[in-house]
């Protein structure tokens, strides 16, 4: 899922300073799962903002909405009755959703209520960790299902660097060496021969190095 963290309430209040009537828009997608932008978070953030503004004798009117997804045009239509009727939209979807709302409703300022993080997993309740950087050329079949791009701090492709010690990355004592994980997994799978395979130079043009990316599937387009 796409993960994120709430922006500090003071930062949001500063953004909202010029506005009297806003929409707080959540998303039932990834941000609901990682507890940062779903229906419950819409309610809590809206209450908090109303209280904070009324405490300053500067009331804020809020329309609370939660869309099925903010990254699909069909679902954005649910915002149409409100988006252009209010001073601003505060979206607590991921950065993709926030931008899509801004694209769709050009007359209304759209503000971010969260800081979008990474593509990750829930390791335990309240703890998420990065697993994929969307490089566009997956090699997980060679690396025991552990990604050298996202799990190695340097995104190395042919084993650990000198900063790996006792399975820990030099970046932080809390970070496992991605390549140690890969080698341990390959051993367990009896696939250590994969470690000896030369992987050709990675073409990073499929990653962010090629600029903003687009996927066009002719078989899917109408």
């Amino acid at each position, binding site marked *: 899922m796409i993960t994120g963290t709430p922006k*500090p*309430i*003071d930062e949001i209040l500063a953004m909202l300073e010029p506005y009297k009537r806003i929409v707080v828009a959540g998303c039932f997608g990834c941000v609901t799962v990682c507890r940062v932008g779903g229906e*419950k978070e819409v*309610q*809590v953030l809206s*209450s*908090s903002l*109303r*209280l*904070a503004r*009324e*405490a300053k*004798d500067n009331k804020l009117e809020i329309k609370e909405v939660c869309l099925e997804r903010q990254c699909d045009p069909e679902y954005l239509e649910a915002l149409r009755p409100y988006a252009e009727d209010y001073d601003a939209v505060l979206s607590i979807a991921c950065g993709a959703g926030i931008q899509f709302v801004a694209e769709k409703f050009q007359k209304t300022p759209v503000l971010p209520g969260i800081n979008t993080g990474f593509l990750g997993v829930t390791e335990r309740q309240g703890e998420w960790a990065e697993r994929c950087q969307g490089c566009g050329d997956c090699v997980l079949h060679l690396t025991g299902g552990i990604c050298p791009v996202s799990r190695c701090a340097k995104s190395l492709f042919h084993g650990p660097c000198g900063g790996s010690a006792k399975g820990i990355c030099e970046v932080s004592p809390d970070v496992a060496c991605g390549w140690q994980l890969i080698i341990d997994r390959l051993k367990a799978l009896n696939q250590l021969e994969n470690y000896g395979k030369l992987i050709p130079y990675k073409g990073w043009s499929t990653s962010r190095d090629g600029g903003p990316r687009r996927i066009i599937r002719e078989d899917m387009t109408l």
Partner: protein
Amino acid sequence: MLPCTGRIEEAIILQAFEGGADGVMVVGCLEGDCHYLSGNIRARARVQRVSDILESIGIGGDRVRMYNLSAGEGAKFAAYANEFSEHIDQLGPSIINQVRNTKAEQVTA
């Protein structure tokens, strides 16, 4: 009234403050004694999150507290209720009610 503090959501507590409450006490079963295993533990975490929010927006984190007791401890419930009520009396009206009272006085003046 909720039958179980496990049903408490942060939004419900915040709505009480929007509704004019100066303080909210959440009373759950004794920890380790939850019929649903972790309802009161979850409630404690939610109360703490609301406390943090109230502190961050200038209303005061100490206006919400959680107490734990068993259903048979009527006297203790009364004691906790009195303690919390006195605590809120000492804090006085929340900033929200101060603003509302000032506005009401301006209207009647």
